[in-house]
């Protein structure tokens, strides 16, 4: 059982070490990265199946019993996130083979990619707050280097903003952890849940909750602390952008959902109302920011922000249906957003630019790419029967049931504006006639396969989530129940004492 939980951590770190050892042999590193992420995907499918069958799984590192040692826990939420990490890692690894330049490959791109995946998985699986901080740092350090690798001026500028804001957030997180240890004398999340349950409306606990909201809010790019994201995500190579866009902010959202369902549930009317406001403002600012842009990846970056608003909205509403909606949204969003970035890379490869003014004519010259763009783009905007429609439908229904008309109105309006923004990309990059200017040499067959196979895979997953919305919703609902009634989580970690 513990092998299932530790495999998603050990595989990426093993691959990182192996790729470092093979640093002179780029071809071997490439094969290793595809094989390693493939193995990671298989391991996470195994974990998912086990969690669905047997409920919350738990493993103690070093066999120290629960509140004293470091605990790793896999409930449905964690397992789904790990599964998505595996899938995105695999898609990015295949895509990198054709899109990453050899200089970056030589300077450790693949070891860093594995390290990043390992850090992300650690953050999803740990059951200890300080350990969560450590995993965040593992992930951040890998992402810092991936972002700056190559040393172009734009990358440096983006990386400064990214590094500064994320380090500030980490310091806030650490301060929150320290105060929480002072209050409760434990950092095991399940144990904290029990200990803080009895404190009632304590001002200090709410204050710490706000520290955590700020720290994770920066990492998730919530309003008003999102500005590092559009300043940095369009600067690295597209494969790096894609894995960042899919996974990193979602680690912040995951951490928010985890602590605000398991630990900080003392003063829900206060804390979760603030979260709901932040969600609404995040949606609106994100989508308005996207209108002002005319660069493919910057538009997509601003849409990440607005979509984060939807995911956090479900947490703010705090009903089982709303949380299920949030989980559905996260699942849908990770797949779709990574895919859109990958498509932007294909467009760049074919036309040599990310600027919408210089792009054009792709519908005529590459109809398959145009079709592959439409699937995630329309899903992002929420057109039926794609995955985004059901995600928005669930959140809308939950909002109406909770009587929060304003946020539902905002969510629907932002959905409409997302559609307008996606149509803009479609019209500019795909539909209008190609402007003059040099396009690169046409890609060879092998390169084309590596670029398009991940895009097709992720588009197929988007379609599957949309057409098979029933089973996905069932898993999301089960997960939401686990989150609302956290007794299963607590007793899996602490045993009988945790009842």
């Amino acid at each position, binding site marked *: 059982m513990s092998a299932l939980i530790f495999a998603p951590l050990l595989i990426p770190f093993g691959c990182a070490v192996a790729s470092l050892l093979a640093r002179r042999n780029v071809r071997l590193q490439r094969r290793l990265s595809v094989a390693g992420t493939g193995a990671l995907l298989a391991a996470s499918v195994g974990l998912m199946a086990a969690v669905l069958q047997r409920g919350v799984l738990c493993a103690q590192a070093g066999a120290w019993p629960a509140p004293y040692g470091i605990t790793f826990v896999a409930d449905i939420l964690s397992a789904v996130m790990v599964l998505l990490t595996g899938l995105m890692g695999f898609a990015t690894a295949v895509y990198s083979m054709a899109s990453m330049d050899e200089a970056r490959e030589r300077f450790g791109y693949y070891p860093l990619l594995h390290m990043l995946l390992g850090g992300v998985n650690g953050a999803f699986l740990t059951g200890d707050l*300080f350990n969560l*901080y*450590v995993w965040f*740092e593992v992930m*951040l*350090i890998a992402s*810092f*280097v991936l972002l*700056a690798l190559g*040393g172009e*001026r*734009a990358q*440096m*500028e*983006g*990386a*400064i*903003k990214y*590094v*500064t804001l994320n*380090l*500030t957030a*980490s*310091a*806030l997180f*650490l*301060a929150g*952890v*320290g*105060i929480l*240890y*002072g209050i409760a004398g434990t950092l095991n999340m399940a144990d904290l849940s029990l200990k803080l349950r009895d404190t009632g409306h304590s001002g200090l606990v709410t204050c710490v909750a706000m520290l955590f909201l700020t720290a994770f809010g920066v990492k998730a790019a919530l309003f008003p602390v999102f500005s590092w994201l559009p*300043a*940095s995500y*369009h*600067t690295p190579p597209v494969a790096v952008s894609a894995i960042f866009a899919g996974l990193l902010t979602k680690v912040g959202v995951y951490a928010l959902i985890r602590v605000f369902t398991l630990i900080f549930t003392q003063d829900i009317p206060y804390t979760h109302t603030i979260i709901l406001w932040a969600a609404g403002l995040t949606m609106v600012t994100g989508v308005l920011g996207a209108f002002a842009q005319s660069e493919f990846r910057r538009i997509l970056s601003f849409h990440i922000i607005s979509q984060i608003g939807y995911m956090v909205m479900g947490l703010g509403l705090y009903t089982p249906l709303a949380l299920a909606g949030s989980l559905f949204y996260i699942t849908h969003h990770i797949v779709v957003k990574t895919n859109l970035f990958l498509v932007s890379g294909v467009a760049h490869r074919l036309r040599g630019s990310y600027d919408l003014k210089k792009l054009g004519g792709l519908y005529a010259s590459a109809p398959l790419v145009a079709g592959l763009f439409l699937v995630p783009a329309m899903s992002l905007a929420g057109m039926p029967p794609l995955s985004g429609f059901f995600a928005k439908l669930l959140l809308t229904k939950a909002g109406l049931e909770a009587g929060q008309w304003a946020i539902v109105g905002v969510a629907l309006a932002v959905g409409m504006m997302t559609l307008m923004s996606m149509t803009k990309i479609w019209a500019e990059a795909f539909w209008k006639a190609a402007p003059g200017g040099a396009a690169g040499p046409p890609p060879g067959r092998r390169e084309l396969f590596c670029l398009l196979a991940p895009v097709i895979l992720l588009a197929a997953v988007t379609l599957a989530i949309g057409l098979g919305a029933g089973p996905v919703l069932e898993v999301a609902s089960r997960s939401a129940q686990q989150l609302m009634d956290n007794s299963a989580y607590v007793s899996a970690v602490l045993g009988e004492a945790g009842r």
Partner: protein
Amino acid sequence: MENLLALVIGVLYAAGIYMMLRRSLVKLIIGLALLSNAANLLIFTSGGLVPARPPLVAPGRTLPSAPFADPLPQALILTAIVISFGVMAFALALFYRAAEEAGADDLDRLTGTDT
């Protein structure tokens, strides 16, 4: 002792945030270092101060005699120090490269990716 440490932590946070709000890259990184040290001291203080009572087990016993200093916050701080050390080293290299690329250590001139 708690009051003194609380004061020190407050001053460190204030100084750190002030430095981060300046335009110079060098001051920004000093501010970051101050901020992470303030957080470490905060953990140390909120973990509870028990002076001159190390958590040592006397011969022939299985538990240290109460009251004793909690060793866990110090273990946490040690981990945090190591991490922030590594991150600072990276940040210094990055900021140096950026200043070299831009030809200045002025943050207001590093706005190429903002709009």
